[in-house]
Each structure stands twice: as C-alpha cells, then as structure tokens.
C-alpha cells in the first residue's frame, strides 16, 4: 500500500511539473521552429523569427514598455521610500492604519482599478492623459503597495541601535539616512523595485484600458495579434521579452544585491 502510494505520489509530481513546463517549452520550440509547425529537432531550429523583432511594430511597443516600466519602477521606489520612512522607520503614531491605507489598492482587482482609472480620465475630461501618463498612474497604483511593503519590511527589521550608534558619532539625521539606513535597506528597496519592474513590464489588465493607437505596450500588442493568429513571431517576442526580464532581474541584483547575504546584523 505504502509502496503504491509512493509511486503514485512521484508520478503525480512529475505530471504536475510537466504540466507547468509544457506551455513554456512549447513557446521556446515555436520560437525556433522554421514553420508554424513546431519541431523539437534542434537541427532544424532557426532564429529567423527573432530577426523580425527589430521591425518597428515590435520595437516601438517594447521601447514604450521599457520606458514605462523604468519610470514606474523609479517613481514607486521613491514614493515607497517616503511612505515606508514614516510608517516603518519613524513609526509615527497611526502607522499601522497608514500602512493599511497604503496597501488598500491590493484589495481591488486590477481590472476594476483599470475601469476606474479609464472612466475617471474619460468622464472627467482628462482625455489627454490616456496613453502614457495614464499608464504610469495606473501602474504606480499597482506597484506602490508591493514596493511599500517590501521597503517597510526591510525598515521594520532595521536595528535602531545602529542609528543611535551613528548619532553618538555625530551623524545628523540626513547623514544617518544616507550612510546607515539606505545602504542597509537597499536589498529590500531593490527587490521591491525589481518586482515593480516585472509587474509593470508584463501588465495587461490595467494597460488594456489605457493604451492608444501608437502608444501600445508590448504585452498588449502581443495579445492583440494573438486574437487573429498564432504567428511564430509572437513566440519569438515572448521568448525575447522573457530573456529581457531575466536580464533586468540580474541587473537589479547586481546593483541592489538583494539575493546575496549582506554582511548583515551585528550579533
């Protein structure tokens, strides 16, 4: 009985993992297959679909998504720092309530937030803000709660005695933030910003309401095409954008060092 169970368990584990890997493998294969028919024979593989990506119909949305994600990442990092500073570092009276307020957008589904913003911009007469400005606004609402949470997490863990030590050595409050607080919470800040970058770069439910002709993000461009055909060039776009995201994560990691153990925590 136990033996049977163990085999059954391992088999189901393998099947589930195969289920997880399957569509991703298919996309990779599709992106290098010479025709729309997928082949798993490496001798036939080609990079011709990737060559098509430099066309402006793919490059422009990519650049927009990149700029959007970059702006959103930087802004939500800055705003998140400010908010977390008051809430988690200074722990000003009412900080728990303020934190709840700051993360409250998480309780609202993205599609609902998207509707709210598009209705607000259209019916209040801010048509001009549809497109990039609206996208930035919406994406910040999406990413800020996560970023605040991650920075606040780092700041809650920040050892206040380090601050006292710096203070008695003559550091002013500005110097303490610059030389002690920021370097120590940097991993938290950068993991928050990385998360924001991925969320923004991949976003669909908010962007779908706010893009305009000529101002369309990469994921929206892809799904618009997907509704008509499963052109292998779409597979190449997807693979390239995944590669780009992985590269971005590595870059953030190099700067922020959030995965490495910092020489942290005095005993």
């Amino acid at each position: 009985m136990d033996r049977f169970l163990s085999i059954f368990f391992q088999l189901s584990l393998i099947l589930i993992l195969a289920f997880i890997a399957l569509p991703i493998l298919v996309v990779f294969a599709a992106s290098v297959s010479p025709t729309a028919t997928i082949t798993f024979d490496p001798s036939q593989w080609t990079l011709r679909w990737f060559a098509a990506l430099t066309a402006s119909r793919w490059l422009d949305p990519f650049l927009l998504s990149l700029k959007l994600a970059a702006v959103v990442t930087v802004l939500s990092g800055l705003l998140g720092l400010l908010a977390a500073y008051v809430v988690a570092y200074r722990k000003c009276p009412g900080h728990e309530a303020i934190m709840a307020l700051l993360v409250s957008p998480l309780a609202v589904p993205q599609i609902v937030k998207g509707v709210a913003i598009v209705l607000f911009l259209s019916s209040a007469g801010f048509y001009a803000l549809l497109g990039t400005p609206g996208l930035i606004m919406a994406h910040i609402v999406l990413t800020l709660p996560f970023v605040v949470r991650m920075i606040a997490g780092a700041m809650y863990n920040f050892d206040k005695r380090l601050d006292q030590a710096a203070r008695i050595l003559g550091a002013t409050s500005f110097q303490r933030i610059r030389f002690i607080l920021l370097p120590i919470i940097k991993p938290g800040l950068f993991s928050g910003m990385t998360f924001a970058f991925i969320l923004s770069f991949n976003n669909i439910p908010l962007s779908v309401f706010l893009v305009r002709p000529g101002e369309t993000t990469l994921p929206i461009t892809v799904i618009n095409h997907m509704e008509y055909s499963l052109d292998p060039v779409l597979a190449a776009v997807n693979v390239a954008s995944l590669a780009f995201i992985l590269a971005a994560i590595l870059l953030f990691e190099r700067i922020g060092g959030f995965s490495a153990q910092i020489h942290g925590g005095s005993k």
Partner: protein
Amino acid sequence: MSSIETLSALRQPTHLPVRLSRYFPLAPPLIVLMIAFAIPMGMMIGLSFHDADTGILTLDNYVRFFGDDLMLAGLWRTALMSGLVALCVTVMAYPVAYYLARSTSRWRVVVFALAITPELAGVVLRTYGWLVILEDHGAINNLLTWSGLISEPLPLSKNLIGVVIGLTHVVLPFGILSLLTSIQGIDPNLERAAQILGSSRVSIIRHIILPLSVPGIVSSLLIAFTMAASAYATPALLGGAGFKVIATMVYEQVLFYIDWPFAAVMAVILLVMMLTIAFIGARVEARLHRKLHI
C-alpha cells in the same frame, strides 16, 4: 526656574507643527494614491448609481444588471470557472507543496525553481503556449487526428476547458506557496511520532497532514478563486467570444459599447464579489486557526 518655565511655554506653540511635519514625506505617495486610485474608485462607484443619459441618481443600472440574462450567465461562468480553477490548483499544488516542505533531496531546488519561475514569464507567454497546444489545429488535436482517434478536432479552446487549464497554470505557483507555508508549519515530529505508533503513510496523511493543513488548503482555494475571478488576459485569449466572463465583459462594455455607468456597475459587482469572498475567507481562516489551536 522661571526662565525654564518661560522657555517651555515658548516652545509649546511650535510643538504641534513639528510633530505634524513628521508626516510630510507621506504627502507624495498619498497624493498619488488619491488621484490615481481613491478618486477614480469613488467616481466609478458614484457613476454606477447614475443614469447614462440623464445623469440622474438611480439604481436602474443594478436592476438592469440583475435582470439581464447575458450578465447573469457571465456571472455564473465567472463563478464556475473560478471554482474549478480553485479546485484544480489546490489539488495539483498539494503534492508539490508537500514535496517541497518535506524533501531533503537535491532535486528540491529544481522542483522549487520549476514551480515558481514560470511566474516571471508573464501571462502572455504561457497563454500563447496553451493556445498553440489546445487550439483546433494545435498540438493535441493534430496528434489525436493523426493517430486516428478522432476525426473532428476536440473543442479545447474558446471554452471553459481552455480557460480553466490556462488559469490553473497561471495561479498554480500561488497555490503552491500558500500550501507550502502551511505544511512547513506542521512539526515533522508529528509524522514520526505517528509512524512509531504504527500508522501507515496513508493514515498519517489522512489523520495528521490533511487535517493540520486545512488552513493552507482554504487559503489556496481562496487565493486561486479570487485570482481567477479577476483575471482578464487568460479568459480573453483562451475563452474568447465563446466563453465570456465578467472581466472580459467589463472590457467590452468600456471600449465597445461605451456604456460607462453599466461598466461601472459590473466593476463594482466584481469588486463586491471579491471583497465578500476575502471577508468570508478571513473569517473561516480565523475560525480554523482557533479550532486547530495554531
């Protein structure tokens, strides 16, 4: 002595602004959330109570929603789809989470990476993969036709099956994570103790692991249900016109029918649905924790 008193008396008035100034850094984030979130949400909720043409305050939009068979069918499809996704995710996540919680093998890292990293790929890539696999001339149907098992392609996309498969794939990592936390919290010594007392693996799972991981199961169900019910891209692509849910219908309402108050009603109903489930879920979880004394 009196000079000290004067000093502190002088300091009093400056006291309050000094304390308030500590909150100043909150202004930028709060203003952004105000403009981009609170005001739009308020406006949308307000709009849902107004007549589209006359602008008069009314409940008509809600009445219309609940009297509209198309809408009710959409609501039903949303609930059915989310329920199925919640079940599939939890059933599939459980063995993976259990393995991750208990295994000491070096494959553990590999399994963990396999289970979690697809999240980085984004919804579009995965949906594209499923479409290639599931569509009428996709991998599965081609294989089955070629082998002569079927003559007509099986309807695997543009319907419930396709959407549930796609969403299960999207939500699975979250189910795994929430079950993982729960199972990791169960003392492995309990299992050893039961083993010493002569329990078989089956009865250990039945009498120890399953009961103690009920909170994890509940939170996995909840997270999967809410994520599925508010998902947009996967239903839009794998369900398409053949399987419309509230999220995709809201989108049509905003961009094609341009009926804003009605779109607002749908969004508000979706929101209320989510909040209700989250509320009930929190209550159930709290009760479970009390019952299991954890």
